[in-house]
């Protein structure tokens, strides 16, 4: 059998440790990680334990198994907080999470974890040479969350669920005040609010048109030079007209009622 299987079967921890280091040097990360996983529990408390754990984390990192490498880097800096390698491990923990963060349309748990890991790193090592790098990565990760939130809100807009679109876009506007999509969100909120009012029953129209008009004013105030402004003004005019019509119709509906009441009030002779 091969040298590796002999190593795996051996019960000599030191031999295995030396073998793992050699495999790691030769970039055979998979086999190295197999050996290290086995001996790390037994190495606990010995001189070699520290190096073994750090190398194991790197083994997973180079195998692109970022979930596991994040886990082992974290375990390293938690166990060996005073090690000179602790800073590196803490950064690599965050960086592994950054690497495992997927596209914005998928689960963003790792993105959020990565952001807070970078922040903890910055708090622990505020003078580190990696500060700029960290800030850049945090920004990139945050923009993923922002895109996700905007896409979800936009999905309601696409599906013509106007009420939901207004709510989701408003939430987005509140949550991401410096987003690149903010202007578009303002415009889409106005359009959704107008369409929502237009497709409502008469008794609700007045209030909803007024809401839409309010959204126009917010939009025009904040983005007076927007490329959507012409379209927005158009919607605004239609909303004003819709509001007037709705008020008119409501009055007409109430009139006969009033008249009837008046008729009743006047005793007939």
């Amino acid at each position: 059998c091969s040298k590796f299987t002999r190593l795996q079967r051996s019960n000599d921890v030191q031999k295995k440790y030396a073998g793992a280091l050699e495999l790691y040097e030769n970039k055979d990360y998979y086999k190295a990680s197999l050996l290290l996983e086995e001996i790390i529990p037994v190495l606990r408390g010995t001189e070699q334990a520290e190096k073994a754990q750090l190398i194991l984390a790197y083994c997973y990192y180079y195998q692109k198994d970022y979930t596991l490498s994040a886990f082992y880097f974290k375990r390293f800096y938690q166990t060996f907080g005073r090690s000179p390698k602790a800073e590196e491990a803490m950064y690599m923990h965050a960086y592994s999470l950054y690497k495992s963060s997927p596209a914005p349309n998928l689960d963003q748990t790792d993105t959020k974890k990565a952001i807070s890991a970078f922040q903890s790193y910055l708090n622990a090592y505020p003078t580190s040479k990696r500060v700029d790098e960290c800030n850049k990565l945090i920004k990139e990760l945050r923009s993923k969350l922002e895109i996700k939130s905007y896409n979800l809100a936009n999905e309601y807009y696409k599906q013509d669920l106007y009420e939901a679109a207004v709510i989701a876009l408003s939430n987005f506007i509140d949550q991401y005040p410096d987003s690149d999509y903010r202007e578009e969100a303002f415009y889409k909120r106005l359009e959704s609010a107008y369409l929502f009012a237009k497709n409502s029953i008469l008794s609700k129209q007045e209030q909803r048109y007024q809401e839409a008009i309010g959204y126009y004013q917010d939009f025009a105030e904040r983005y007076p030079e927007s490329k959507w402004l012409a379209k927005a003004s158009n919607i605004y005019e239609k909303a004003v007209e819709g509001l007037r019509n709705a008020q008119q119709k409501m009055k007409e509906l109430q009139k006969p009622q009033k008249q009837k009441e008046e008729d009743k009030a006047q005793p007939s002779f």
Partner: protein
Amino acid sequence: QNRSGEYVIAGINISGIKFLDSNALLNMAGLKVGDTLEIPSTRTATAIRKLWETGLFGDVEITATKFEGNKVYLNLYLQERPRVSRIQFEGVKKGDADKLQDKIKAIKGKIISDPLVKNALITVEKYYKDKGFYAVKVNATQPKDTLLSNSVILKLKVERGKKVKADEIIFEGNQAVSDKRLHRRMKIKEKRFPRIFTSSKFVPKKYKEDKERIIKLYGKEGYRDAQILEDCVYFVKPNRVNIYMKLHEGPQYHYRNITWKGNFVYSDEYLSQVLGIKKGDIYDREELDKRLNFSLTEQDISSLYMDNGYLFFRITPVETKVEGDSIDIEMRIYEGPQATINSIFINGNTRTSDHVILREIRTIPGRKFSRREIIRTNQALSQLGYFDPEKIQIEPVPHLETGTVDINYTVEEKPSDQLELSGGWGGGIGFVGTVGVVFNNFSLRKAGKLSNWRPVPAGDGQQLALRIQANGRAFQTYSLTFTEPWLGGKKPNAFSVNLSHSVQRNVFRNRVLGGLQVTSATMSLGRRLNFPDDYFVLSNALSFRQYTIDNYNAGLGYNNGVSRSITFSTTLARNSIDNPTFPRTGSNISLSVTMTPPFSLFDNIEGRANYDALSPQERFRWIEYHKWMLDASFFTPIVGKLVLNTRAHFGFLQTYSKEKEVGPFERFILGGSGLSGFNFLLGSDIIALRGYKDRSIVPFSTGVNAGTGGTVFSKYVMELRYPLSLNPAATIFVLSFVEAGNNWADFGRFNPFNVYRSAGIGARVLMPAFGMIGIDYAVGFDEVRGDPGANGGQFHFTIGQQIR
């Protein structure tokens, strides 16, 4: 003497250790010479905790040995103990050993102690007891590990013994419920001779559940106070135990007065009506909970509120008075405010895009919270097939201050691709092998990037299916289908494209004599309609097909040449059945028309006016027909689980011009199981008629093309179905039926009452991996003209769910 204050650590001495490395330990403890240390502080406590957590020491102590000005000298006393370096098993099978290693591997590297050994023993014992080896014995020894200093090997010796079964189960104190019913309720059965399928294995976990089951049985009958006073399990033989249970039943309780408190939205009378419990009914706490909180079948009190925004609704039934065997209950209700949905969050989708999930979610911002919509969303997400249905989590997060609720949906992805590998005899050409693969969560958008092909780009909820069927050179068919269920992303408009290519060859002594190829491309778009109701679906399809005939007699009147067809088809269908696998109620009606362009109108231009003088190849250069199909299927529950399925099917095929006869293509063939086999050439519609041989019912030959099938058919079926298992893993039902149908050469001869009749019985098994498989035995009553042996008793096998 008070020594509190700030010090600098001037020295650390480590005592007590023999084998471990002091520097490594100090790193772990987080203490270092030169550090400032406040006394007292939590840092020393943390250090002790960290060292203790390594599990390496029997004792950890930190003491200050000397103070010198602001300097302090520390001593760490660490008592080292032997550690477990390996775990070995004796008397254990390889498979079990691997599983057990996995269960107790956490103790590797820890110091050996009595509780540690005891825990290992309990884990191993439990493992065997859960498998039915109740008499298992485990011993532990701890020899020194000669390869590693200060270490021991934990050796576990297992005597598994035989599986232990229940010999007798003895009850005492039961009067209201018979021994027999108690036995029936228990999962553990007495070991008796004819009992083969039920288990009498004694497993502690199962025994515990059985005891709960007995109490539940009493509860259902109103014996609220019932309990098991004592019970014991004793060996009567090395592999047999007796179970003894002493029961206390208590009185049977009934409801007396039920009163409501705290309800403002609904009146007492209305709530009582929904609850459906009357004075004098048997007091069944479980049933009461069901009617108050959650019932799958009927409306419950909670759903009244929870489907209408009352997210905070709580109801507590309080027994206000117990007199003799009568109980008064007061329903204390907290209605709370109505909550409006604000935000929807999606988590756990590591493969599937947000928008694919969001479009299935029925809780929409701005609407009132509704438990029903949450349940329906759960079903919709399960049905996608992308997520583990057991692990879909839906968590409403209420915000009382704004009167809103956010809803978190958490899913867990599971593999959704299917592989089909099958082989079988069929179609009169011998063995046919099938290889198919279906990617149910495909993404065309991501297909452009090579790195997404691992193995295929996924996550956009599209479907890509590839299928190859072949029998050497004689028969091959390839097909590729792509489906986008939400074209445009606005509404569920299913769009699909299919490409297929089939080859059939005459092979004689390894030489190809001639053959036929059919290549087709189809595009279709289906839309759910909102009018007249939302069960309606309208679908349109456009397809092109080319037949290449090379020295092959297909009954067309020419053996070399090319025919083509372009068809447009529209189907209007209404499907309101309640369950696709075993429908109980609802109906499925569909009307479809398929037509080719009316080429005959251009005949004059092409100089084809004299139709009769044209050669067959000229006639069939462009195939021409229009075809109408009507299918109606109704499901009616009869009694209990018995369901009646009534079906009627009609089909009609015609040309555009009166003078021309209908071509050989797309004609109807009746008889047998209705499996289409491999006659794809003429695109014949093969329709089942059980009790008659496969494809035996074709109009008695008149005219050139009549032998290839009829142009008008009708068929009627009445089928009684009874489900044996409705388990989603394997739905099984039996059926009996009467049916009748016939097939005519032209519309002039059509007589819907002149039909071939038959009756029979059958069974269907539906497993998700295989689809539906069926067997029927049917007897045909009427002799078929021109084919005297075609009727009579016979078996029919079917694969897949057949419409007609």
